[in-house]
């Protein structure tokens, strides 16, 4: 465990008991995530990437091994609101305006009204949704709703951002745009981002480290340090370095029998 | 199912216990009145003196008489045993003696109510179905009928019940079956209408468009897509509908002059001051409601299973 690691997993195990026998969602997963990393988890369904994210968030309980967040147990980390979580669907409350939705965690954490106002303004600017504060979710497109959901996750200034296939339900053009914006956001705010995806280009484009996982049992097949520079225009996806890394990811997936 | 049976049984058992415990305080003042008339020693001795004393204090001061609360002929709250006895007296016992269909048997009266409920239900379901089909297929029906259907339910049919009975007797229809069926149908058509409209409109646009690419006729679209899609909605509203039809029948039996049916027995029990008859009829009515709704539930399971909609 390095001094700068923010999330540390050691021999993590999660076995579900089902009617058809035990399911090893996670087996012997060991990983350190450092401060300021942008780390992507990629793999097919059933490889455990979402399960691992949920373990970090304290939404699932492991059946073996250790997992600490900021040096605390996952439950303590959850209760001290150490991270923001972004789901695959925006899940905004239709009875609140966009501003109201971003205020939701701030109300729960009992911030003052003026502090709430400032934070809402700040995060709306960060995700480029200025002017939409008083609109309702159904008046916004899918991409915009997802941006609002990211704003909501940023509003209480947690150091860690956990994202579970946040752009999976959007079309490719919107997705590209949001990828760019997310990178920019990361550079601006210096947060530690843990990102789950099943798109190889997205994983390679966004992250500093790529973790390849495979199913049955859910395990890590490869951890790739991304040598690409931090400043990355979208066009970098056509370069040969990019394609090399993507090929290595694909190799890892094949070795984990993900394509079987 | 088993997992759910246990909490239900515990709750039912608790309700049963509370019922038994509640009999004593509910009946105590009447019991003391009766004992006073029988020249027993009661404290305080006269009824006017007792009126403002709380039941709890009375029970403490006259605790040897608590048992009497459980045996009154005209209790405010009968014990479960008394209700069960009354039901048995007017059903099973009469059946054994071969008098199941006598005018005093709850089997007879239950059957009268049941018959009317079926008529009302059939009428209401037909109106509901026809209405739903016209609303879905004709814009003019959608706009004109739907608001009035909603308003019809906000008009308390019970206000119309005596009216309908008088009207039909004036027209020459002597027995009460027709007006009762009308009242039943009035209460039951609306859930069926609303449910069927939702059901007939439930197929997705892509499914309707697919049939258009086959150049399917309107009849085909109705019988092959809309009707099967509406079956789950139909059964849910049938359950609500049959309960409503039963309520309608009993309401139709309540206005003065009714002599047959469970509602009539309740009325007569009230007029003659025999509360046990009221309780017995209510329990039989509840039993009927349970049986009817469960029957539809079973039909629902069988039908949906055949259609592959339920495992």
């Amino acid at each position, binding site marked *: 465990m390095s001094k700068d690691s923010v999330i540390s997993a050691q021999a993590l195990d999660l076995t579900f008991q089902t009617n058809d026998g035990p399911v090893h969602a996670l087996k012997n997963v060991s990983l350190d995530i450092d401060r300021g990393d942008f780390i992507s988890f990629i793999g097919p369904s059933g490889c455990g990437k979402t399960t691992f994210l949920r373990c970090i968030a304290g939404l699932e309980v492991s059946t073996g091994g250790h997992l600490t967040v900021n040096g605390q147990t996952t439950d303590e980390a959850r209760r001290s609101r150490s991270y923001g979580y972004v789901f695959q669907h925006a899940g905004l409350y239709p009875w609140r305006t966009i501003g109201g939705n971003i205020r939701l965690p701030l109300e729960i954490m009992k911030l003052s009204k003026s502090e709430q106002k400032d934070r809402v303004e700040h995060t709306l600017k960060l995700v480029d949704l200025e002017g939409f504060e008083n609109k309702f979710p159904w008046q916004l497109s899918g991409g915009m709703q997802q941006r609002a959901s990211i704003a909501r996750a940023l509003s209480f200034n947690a150091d860690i951002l956990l994202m579970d296939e946040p752009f999976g339900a959007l079309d490719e053009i919107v997705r590209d745009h949001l990828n760019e914006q997310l990178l920019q956001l990361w550079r601006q705010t210096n947060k530690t981002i843990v990102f789950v995806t099943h798109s190889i280009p997205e994983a390679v484009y966004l992250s500093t480290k790529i973790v390849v996982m495979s199913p049955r049992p859910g395990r890590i097949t490869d951890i790739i340090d991304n040598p690409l520079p931090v400043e990355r225009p979208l066009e970098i996806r056509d370069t040969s370095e990019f394609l090399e890394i993507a090929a290595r990811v694909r190799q890892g997936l094949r070795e984990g029998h993900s394509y079987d | 199912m088993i997992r759910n049976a246990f*909490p239900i049984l515990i709750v039912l058992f608790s309700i049963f216990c509370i019922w038994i415990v509640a009999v004593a305080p509910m009946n105590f003042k009447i019991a003391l009145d009766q004992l006073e008339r029988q020249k027993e020693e009661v404290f305080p001795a006269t009824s006017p003196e007792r009126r403002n004393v709380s039941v709890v204090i009375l029970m403490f001061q006259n605790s040897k008489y608590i048992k009497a609360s459980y045996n009154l002929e005209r209790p405010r709250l009968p014990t479960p045993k008394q209700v069960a006895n009354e039901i048995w007296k007017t059903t099973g016992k009469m059946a054994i003696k071969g008098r199941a269909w006598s005018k005093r048997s709850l089997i007879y009266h239950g059957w009268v109510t049941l018959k009317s409920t079926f008529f009302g239900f059939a009428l209401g379901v037909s109106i509901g179905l026809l209405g739903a089909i016209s609303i879905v297929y004709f814009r003019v029906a959608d706009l004109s009928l739907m608001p009035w259907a909603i308003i019809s339910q906000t008009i308390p049919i019970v206000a119309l019940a005596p009216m309908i009975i008088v009207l039909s007797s004036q027209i020459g229809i002597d027995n009460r079956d027709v007006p009762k069926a009308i009242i039943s149908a009035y209460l039951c058509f609306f859930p069926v209408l609303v449910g069927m409209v939702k059901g007939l409109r439930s197929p997705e646009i892509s499914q309707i468009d697919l049939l258009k690419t086959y150049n399917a006729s309107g009849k085909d679209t109705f019988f092959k897509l809309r009707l099967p899609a509406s079956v789950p909605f139909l059964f849910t509203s049938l359950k609500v509908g049959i309960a409503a039809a039963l309520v309608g029948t009993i309401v139709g039996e309540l206005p003065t002059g009714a002599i047959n049916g469970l509602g009539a027995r309740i009325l007569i029990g009230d007029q003659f001051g025999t509360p046990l008859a009221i309780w017995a009829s209510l329990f039989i009515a509840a039993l009927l409601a349970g049986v009817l709704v469960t029957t539809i539930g079973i039909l629902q399971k069988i039908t949906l299973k055949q259609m592959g909609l339920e495992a």
Partner: protein
Amino acid sequence: MWVVIFISVWLVGWGINIVLANSSKVAPHFRNIGVPLIFGITILILWEIIVQGLSVSPVILPAPSLVISTFMASVDVLWVDFVQTVVKGAIRGFLIGAVAAFFIAIIIDRSSFLTRGLLPIGNFFSALPIVGVAPIMVNWFGFDWQSKAAVVVIMVFFPILVNTVQGLKATDTLQRDLMKTYAASYYQNLFLLRLPAAMPFIFNGLKIATTMALIGAIVAEYFGSPTRGMGFRISTGVGSLDIDLVWAEIFVAAIVGTLFFGLMTWGERKITFWHASQREK
């Protein structure tokens, strides 16, 4: 002669409605109110024509014009009845029943054991002809408005309870997980997420309850009432063949029922403005 008028009115009314319904040039708001209104007015006119044309005795079926004139003439009696039945009986019973059902639903919701035990029983009781307990309530609470309110409380309690419990269960996993990531307390969860999400269900129950409330109050009066009240006036009016007064009472009942239901619908639109069913065009 009147047959001709009858048929022509019918055709004209129907015709106007068909044109209105199918034309695309009419504003939707105007059309949604206009068509049912014309339908209703046509029926009233046809009713009037039939009664006049067939010379139906007012004892069997009075004409709308006679009902309206009786209504005007008897406003004081109708008002007294209204206060007795609706204000004292139905509305008080409705409020008590609704508040009780709401709080008990929240209590039940805290325990999955209680929910599994009480919800099926609640469903069963909503199907029962609760009106039948009216004579027992009169026995327990006397002739006056208390027994009527008691009947209304019981009738209104179960639909609201069942619908509220279902509404509280209706939040999806994603929403509940999000609340967990905020480490929200039980009460924060309840007030910020589950109650707003339950509102469509709660209003569904409330709308059912408004119709039950009026039915309960009126039927309870058939079983004994001080010499006032809508149910009382209707049952004695039928007996003494005071049919136009009966119809006037029915008219009042219709208006009250519609207003009550309309109030609930208005509240629904304001509070659940966000729900898909309220946003449908």
